[in-house]
């Protein structure tokens, strides 16, 4: 009679297969990113397609960013006021709001919204192009699909998302002003100046860099998931879904890292 044995080797095999898959996934993603940088600076440049994509991104996300930005401005101001009142420090309100919205909320909220709307859109679009052989069709007519589809989209997200972030900041401050003006009579200009009084160039610069990094992340993750979508309609849905999850996850990690780096820079 054969004894049941714990098959350690088998177990190890499963583990190593999982690791294999993980690392080959990482190296595939790494090569995908590398290919972007290799091809982005080589002609031909599809400028008009980049512009098209910028408009597409704006169109997809503008309503949601306006709404969210405005509401966050109102709510954040409303919630912060009592806390400051306890210390008799309501005069600090505009600069508190400025710091919160310019440095953190504006870029982050914009990036998260765009990860949801734009990232999933790119994932689904490229995914369906992949499974219906449209990407192959480009390749066999001697058109470089990576350049035409991926480079243009990633470049567009890197341009459009910083712009949208500033738009979100502006709308957020307007929302905040709406709340402020129910309590005090300041002009928007004064409020705006006050809220920017403690914002330094480095803060603005960091926000721009952050937004560019988020834009790159959203574009490249969406493209990657779409470009390697497996066949079938389920593959397309999966690509769109994974694009959002992955992009959001990376955005949070990047947020932490960039804040840390900008603090070090400030320290020196």
């Amino acid at each position, binding site marked *: 009679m054969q004894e049941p044995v714990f098959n350690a080797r088998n177990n190890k095999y499963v583990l190593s297969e999982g690791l294999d898959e993980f690392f080959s996934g990482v190296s595939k993603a790494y090569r995908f990113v590398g290919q972007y940088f290799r091809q982005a600076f080589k002609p031909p440049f599809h400028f008009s397609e980049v512009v098209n994509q910028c408009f597409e991104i704006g169109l997809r996300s503008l309503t949601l960013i306006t709404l969210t930005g405005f509401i966050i401005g109102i709510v954040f101001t409303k919630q912060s006021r009592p806390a400051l009142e306890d210390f008799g420090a309501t005069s600090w309100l505009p600069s508190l709001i400025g710091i919160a919205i310019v440095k953190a909320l504006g870029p982050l909220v914009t990036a998260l919204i765009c990860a949801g709307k734009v990232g999933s859109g790119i994932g689904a*679009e490229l995914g*369906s*192009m992949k499974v*219906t*052989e*449209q990407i*192959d*069709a480009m*390749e*066999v*007519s*001697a*058109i470089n699909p990576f350049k*035409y589809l991926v480079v243009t989209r990633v470049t567009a997200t890197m341009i459009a998302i910083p712009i949208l972030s500033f738009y979100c900041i502006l709308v957020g401050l307007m929302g905040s002003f709406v709340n402020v003006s129910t309590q005090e009579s300041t002009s928007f200009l004064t409020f705006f100046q006050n809220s920017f009084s403690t914002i330094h160039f480095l803060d603005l610069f960091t926000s721009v860099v952050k937004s560019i990094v988020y834009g790159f992340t959203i574009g490249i993750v969406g493209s990657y998931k779409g470009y390697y979508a497996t066949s079938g309609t389920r593959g397309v849905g999966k690509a769109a879904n994974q694009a959002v999850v992955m992009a959001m996850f990376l955005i949070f990690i990047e947020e932490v890292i960039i804040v840390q780096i900008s603090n070090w820079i400030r320290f020196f």
Partner: protein
Amino acid sequence: MEKQSLPAKNGPEEPVIIIRDLYKSFGDLHVLKGVDLTVFKGENVAVLGKSGSGKSVLIRILVGLLKPDKGEVTVLGHQVNNLPENELNALRLRVGFSFQSSALYDSMSIRQNLEFPLKMNIKNISKQEIDKSVKEVLEAVGLEDKIDQMPADLSGGQRKRIGIARTLILKPEIMLYDEPTSGLDPITSSEINKLINLVQEQYNTSSIIITHDLTCARDTGDRIAMFEDGRFNKTGKFEEVFNDTDEQANSFYNYNFIQ
């Protein structure tokens, strides 16, 4: 209905596609196991085989969409396997590929679909030249009135035609058709078959027509190649391939015509 033989050629036949001892596998799945095939200038070769047998893999290798594991592929005098990218692209312009799913760019109108390969490949091409070419290929496939519609508005057969038109616009010397009649009703299928023959005449193309539809093979193929178990086990005229006691060929025949 059987295809009329081509007029006798003068001089020796010139090969345009030569496949020698081609192997391809995906992991443990051995798809191509020593494929040999020669296609001569001006002829239509219909490749018949069951679905999932590796026919699409074979023609994808011909245009460099997939890399073979072993073997040689020569298209229009060039070895496809080890061409540098710019030469591969130059070769691809001379080969038209009609996809099984038509692969129309669904974010573009029919006009844009047809213009796209021209605009992307021919620098400084004038508006008139583009319009002329578009009109010409639309006439060839008989869909002039669809020019401003979107791919989603077309029927399956019309999409196939536009897909073919989009490859014709670059004036290919070779056409590769992947299942041109799959998913179409018999009448539409026979129209596509006629179109394939028309393309052969008007554009002087040599073609490989991949299909599991016997009618399509009979009506379009000057020669039939039976693809089975990873290689061609039989080639010849339609009557030669099906007028004998070969079991596999006959089961294919029975399935299609006697059912």
